C-alpha cells in the first residue's frame, strides 16, 4: 500500500505536463488547434475571465470607494481630459464620476461569479438527481422526471424570475441587498438543472446495464459508491458540454435579471446593472456609459456560446 502511494507521489510531478501534452496531441487537441473559432473564442474567454479575476489589481480606480470619487469628474468622455479637473479616463466616467473601465471589470467579476456559481449549483443538483433517477428507477425516477418535464414547459428566464421573486419575499427586508447575489445564484441554478438531469439520467440508463457496473455490484459496492465512482466518470463528457452552453445562458440570464432591476443590487453592479444605468443616459448623449458594458457582455456571451457549440461538435462526432 505505502509503496504504491509513494510511487504515485514520485511520478506525480513528471506526469502533470505529459498529461497536458497528451490532451494537446489527442484528436480533441488537434480539432481544437485546427478550429479558428475555438481558438479565438477560447482566448477571448480566457482574457475576459483573467481580467475579471485580476480586477482589484488592474483596475485603475476603485469605483466603490467613495473617498476616491470626485463628482466633478462625472460624465467625462472617453480618453478626453475632464474640463474641470483635467483627469482623463480611458473609457470615460459615469454620472457619479466612476471610471467606466473599472466598473466594467468589477461588474464582469460579479457576472462571472454568478454565472459560474449558478452553473455549478445546477450541475451538482442536476447530475445528482439524474444519477438517482437513472440508477434507482421506480417512483423516484417518475417523480424527478415529472418535475423536470413540468419545469421545462416554462422558459428558464421566467422560472428564474419567479424563484427570485419568491426567494426575495422570504428574505427579511434588512438582508435583501446583501443576499441578492446568492438569491440570484439560487434562482438561475434552479431554473437550469433540468438539462443536466435529463442527459445524466439517459446516460445512466445505458451505463447501469454494462458489465463493469454489474461487476461492481457483484463485489458488494453500495449504490452510492457505484453511482459516484463508476457511473459518474462515464457520463461526464456530455455534462461538460451542457455546462459550457449553460454558462452562456446563465450569464445572459443574470444580465437580463439585473437589467430588469430584479438581480444584482446597485451596490454590487454586474454588467446587466451597468447597462440598466447606462440606458438612462441614452438620450442625453453619454453613449459610453451604455456602449462599453454592452460590448463586454456581448463578447463574453458570444465567445462562451461559440466555445460551447464547438465543444459539443468536437466531443460528439456523430453530430458532425
Amino acid at each position, binding site marked *: 500500500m505505502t509503496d504504491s502511494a509513494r510511487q504515485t507521489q514520485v511520478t506525480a510531478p513528471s506526469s502533470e505536463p505529459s498529461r497536458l501534452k497528451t490532451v494537446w496531441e489527442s484528436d480533441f487537441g488537434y480539432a481544437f488547434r485546427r478550429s479558428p473559432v475555438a481558438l479565438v473564442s477560447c482566448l477571448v474567454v480566457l482574457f475576459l475571465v483573467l481580467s475579471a479575476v485580476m480586477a482589484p489589481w488592474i483596475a485603475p480606480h476603485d469605483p466603490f470607494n467613495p473617498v476616491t470619487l470626485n463628482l466633478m469628474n462625472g460624465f467625462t468622455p472617453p480618453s478626453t481630459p475632464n474640463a474641470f479637473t483635467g483627469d482623463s479616463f480611458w473609457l470615460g466616467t459615469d454620472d457619479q464620476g466612476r471610471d467606466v473601465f473599472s466598473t466594467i471589470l468589477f461588474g464582469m467579476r460579479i457576472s462571472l461569479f454568478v454565472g459560474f456559481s449558478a452553473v455549478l449549483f445546477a450541475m451538482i443538483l442536476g447530475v445528482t438527481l439524474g444519477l438517482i433517477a437513472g440508477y434507482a428507477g421506480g417512483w423516484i425516477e417518475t417523480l424527478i422526471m415529472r418535475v423536470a418535464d*413540468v419545469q421545462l*414547459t*416554462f*422558459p428558464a*428566464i*421566467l422560472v428564474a*424570475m*419567479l424563484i*427570485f*421573486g*419568491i426567494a*426575495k*419575499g*422570504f428574505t427579511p427586508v434588512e438582508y435583501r441587498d446583501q443576499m441578492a447575489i446568492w438569491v440570484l445564484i439560487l434562482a438561475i441554478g434552479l431554473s437550469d438543472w433540468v438539462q443536466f438531469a435529463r442527459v445524466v439520467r439517459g446516460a445512466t440508463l445505458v451505463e447501469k446495464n454494462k458489465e463493469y457496473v454489474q461487476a461492481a455490484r457483484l463485489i458488494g459496492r453500495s449504490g452510492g459508491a457505484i453511482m459516484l465512482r463508476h457511473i459518474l466518470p462515464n457520463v461526464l463528457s456530455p455534462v461538460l458540454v451542457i455546462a459550457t452552453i449553460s454558462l452562456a445562458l446563465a450569464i*445572459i440570464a443574470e*444580465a*437580463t435579471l439585473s*437589467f*430588469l*432591476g*430584479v438581480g444584482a443590487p446597485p451596490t454590487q453592479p454586474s454588467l446587466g446593472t451597468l*447597462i440598466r444605468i447606462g*440606458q438612462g443616459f*441614452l*438620450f442625453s448623449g453619454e453613449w459610453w456609459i*451604455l456602449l462599453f458594458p*454592452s460590448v463586454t*457582455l*456581448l463578447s463574453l*456571451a*458570444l465567445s462562451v*456560446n461559440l466555445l460551447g457549440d464547438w465543444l459539443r461538435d468536437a466531443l460528439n462526432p456523430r453530430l458532425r
Partner: protein
Amino acid sequence: MLAYVIRRVFHSIVVLLAVGLVAFSMFRFVGDPIDNMLGQERTQADIDRLRTQLGLDQPFAIQYWKFLSGAAEGNFGVSYRQGRPVSDIISERAPATLELAAVSGLFAILLGIGLGVFTAIRRNGIASNLIMTLSLVGVSLPTFLIGILLIYVFSVELDMLPSFGRGETVMVGYWSTGFLTKSGLVALILPAITLGLYQMTLIMRLVRSEMLEVLRQDYIRFARARGLRERVVNFRHALKNTLVPVITVTGLQLGSIIAFAIITETVFQWPGVGLLFINAIHFVDIPVMAAYLMLISVMFVTINLVVDLLYFAIDPRLRVDGRST
C-alpha cells in the same frame, strides 16, 4: 383516447395545485398579513379578532382551499402597493400585453415563414447566407440589448419612432386599444420587433430546414416534371407540408412571447402585465406576484395540454401507446 385525455388533464390539475401551493405559501409565510393591516396601536383582542375574521386560525388545508377557490373566481386580494384589487389592476393592463403579443406573434410568423421559404429556395444565394448569419447573431443577442439598439437607431439617431409607452389609446368597452390611433400604432413597432425577433428566427430556421427536407422528396420532383410553375411547387406543394411542425412550435412559443414580454415591456416602459410583475418583484407586492404566477401557470399548462391533445389527434401512433399503458 378518453383515458389518455383524463390522465393529461389530471396531470395539469396536479401541476396547477402545486403552483397554487407555492403562491399560497407566499401569502401565508412572507411577512404577517396581520402586521400589514393593523397599525401600531393594536391590542391582542384586535389581533385575535382579525385572525378569526381572515380565517388564519383555521387549519392549513382549509386556508389553502379557500385561497384556491378565491383564485378560481379571480379574487387574489388587494395589492399591497396600490391598495386596489389585483384582478382590477391586471384586467386593466392585460390589453396592452395581449396587443403587443399578438402583433409580435404575427410579425414572427409572417416574416419567419417568408424568410424561411426564401432562404430554403435560394439556399446558396448571398442574401440567404447573409440572413442566416444575421439570425445567428440575433439569437445570441439578449432581448434587452436588441431593444436598446433599436431605440438608439430609430429613436435617438433617426428620431422616427417613439421609444416608450403606448401612445394614445381608445377605450372599446372594457378594452383599451392602441390599434385605432396613429400614435398607438407607431408606438407598437419597436416593441413588437424586439419581442418577435427571437421567435421569428426560430420559425425561420425551422421552416428552412423543413423546406430543405421536403424539397428533396419525390413528389416535388414529380410536380416539377409535370411542368408546374416554380411558385406553385414551392408554396402549394412544399410549404403546405412543412406547416404541421411549424404550427406546434408556434403554439408552444405563444407562452414564451407572453413571458418574454416582461423584458420588452421594461425596456419600452410598456404599461402591460409584465411591467406590473417586475415592479411587484421590486416592491415585494405579494398579491400581484401570486396572481401573475397563477395566471401564467394556467396559460402555460393550458397551452401544453392543448398541444399534447393535438398531437394525439394528429399522430395515430400515440393513440396505440396510450391504450397499452
